[in-house]
């Protein structure tokens, strides 16, 4: 995994609560056995109509949100299914960071595993960030994992909390399985003590 320190880029807003991972990647795209290429399917049924044409009313189809790398989202973002395809699709579409009042647990974990930042801020703070986005021309935002601070489009600095072990792993691009296997002796000892031959 590549080290991830700072994300700076265009910001998109999807201000809906309880966006589930079924919406992020509908089931018909879960049959692929690859890990890449899911960006085309992100929010498929919301992005496209039955004929495959873009729905102009859907947030991510707004011209000023095109090419966004940061998403401001509603509470409980990524609830529902454990499908990591949802996180893969977000990342493949271009998002390196999502900021929301809360996340579905499994989605948040999946994001952390693949090097996409899922950052929790109080709802009022997310609302202020959303208000600072210029909906006519688009805006740029920075998410700085190293300093644990968001630089809002209006220049305001918003600190955030982030699990320290995950931060260390992401900043250094470390392989988590490799880290766990450093405890091979402890795993083997546990197995011996519990009769797992």
């Amino acid at each position, binding site marked *: 995994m590549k080290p991830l320190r700072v994300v700076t880029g265009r910001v998109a807003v999807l201000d*809906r*609560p*309880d966006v*589930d991972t*079924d*919406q992020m990647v*509908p*089931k*018909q795209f*879960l*049959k*692929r*056995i*690859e*890990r890449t290429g899911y960006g085309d399917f992100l929010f498929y*049924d919301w992005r496209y109509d*039955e004929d495959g044409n873009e729905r102009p009313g859907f947030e991510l189809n707004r011209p000023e949100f095109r090419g966004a790398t940061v998403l401001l989202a*509603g*509470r*409980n973002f990524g*609830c*529902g*299914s*454990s*499908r*990591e395809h949802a*996180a893969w699709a977000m990342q493949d579409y271009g998002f390196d960071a999502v900021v929301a009042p*809360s*996340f*579905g*647990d*499994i989605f948040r*974990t*999946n994001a952390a*595993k*693949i090097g996409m930042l899922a950052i929790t801020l109080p709802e009022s703070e997310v609302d202020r960030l959303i208000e600072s986005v210029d909906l006519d021309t688009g805006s740029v935002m920075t998410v700085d994992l190293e300093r644990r601070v968001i630089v809002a489009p209006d220049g305001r600095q918003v600190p955030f909390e982030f*699990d*320290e*072990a995950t931060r260390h792993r992401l900043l250094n691009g470390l392989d*988590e*399985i490799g*880290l*766990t*296997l450093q*405890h091979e002796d*402890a*795993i083997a000892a*546990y*197995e011996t003590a*519990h009769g*797992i031959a």
Partner: protein
Amino acid sequence: MHPRRAYSLGMARTLFDKVWERHVVHEEDGEPTLLYVDLHLVHEVTSPQAFDGLRLAGRPVRRPELTVATMDHNVPTLPGPVTDPLARAQLDALRANCEEFGITLHATGSGYEGIVHVIGPELGLTQPGKTIVCGDSHTSTHGAVGALAFGIGTSEVEHVLATQTLPQKRPKTMLLEFIGALPAGLTAKDMILGAIGRLGVDGGVGYVVEYAGEAVRGLSMEQRMTICNMSIEWGARAGMVAPDETTFAYLEGREHAPRGDEWERAVKDWRSLVSDPGAEYDAHVVVDVRELVPQVTWGTNPGMVAPVDGVVPDPASFSDPTDRVAAERALAYMDLRPGQRIDQIRIDRVFIGSCTNSRIEDLRAAAAVVAGRTVDPRVTALVVPGSAQVRRQAQEEGLDRVFTDAGFEWRLAGCSMCLGMNPDVLAPGERCASTSNRNFEGRQGRGGRTHLVSPQMAAAAALHGRFVDVRTLDREPVPA
């Protein structure tokens, strides 16, 4: 963070604390706890990329004997070959991966295949005190026997395959107490839907929930599974029920359950897996089941739910503006009006199945409602048993005839229309009474409209072509 909390001897501990502490492999300050995994369940959809990752890194599966695979999400429920080339490739990949890495696979046609959360308990693999994971959010189901069971993503699947452990931050604990005795006609499905309606679809985020109280004690094992299954639908990491005589009676004699002296020793140990008197939870909520009425969801998440004798709510009545907009969007998608009576909503399809409600007791309960009656001619109704074993048992009991005589289709085991990865899907605009767990937009088919209900309520809806109160079914006019 409180990785070293509550370890001292003599301190009152919860069921969760006890199971967690038994599985700690390694701990250090500022790091997640490394937790041992006793059982890893695998299916075709969330595993291929994990096996690829192992191959890429040249890593073996550490404990193939603690890993069990089945085919469930993609499989057609009508006899014959898999015609969808993508589905076939995914099923072939699972078969090849299990062969290469030495993992037991309950393949389609083996007689033991089925929904991963149905076969685990049914084979006795699911046991009290175990840690159980699977690349599927409804893994919480297995907590019904007093296991710590939760869904994981594909990166974590790879991690468990390689190390048989998972780094985990210790979650918070919540006690959800169902007080009172469950009224007749009510089910575990109504209990959990009613609870989610009150507590919200994010009410459990960050918690492992222990379900307790008189109403839970009175439930069968399979009904407890229904409750734990839907833990994820209000965001909980896992759901658990302390094991008791009901649990032991359910497990005794199952294929992978301990036998003889080992069984006696196991039960003695399992009896200790209860929360100590005075054990503290981070949160405690109470739901009085005596107030419950059969539940029907009206919206696009499981918290958007109403009693069958109620009406579709008016979004304007929601105090939170975010909730109001979400409700308006849900009603537009569901094509419902505020104030519309729930029992006047007409349906096109009925689905009885899924890891929530496809076990033998669910089928018996639905069959009891259906027996001697006829499915409304405008309704297409489907019964999909949760496993090949459930299907066989139902057929031995003649339940298949009860269903087919009434006009239901009797299918092969699988996840089927719960998520519509196989050919069983709703057409755009179709409305379905479903015993599954998610009424998300498009879940059962693009543009399809899902109403979550209990098996009895789904069966009753099939007969009448609309929702009816199963408690007063005999008084309902016979459909014209």
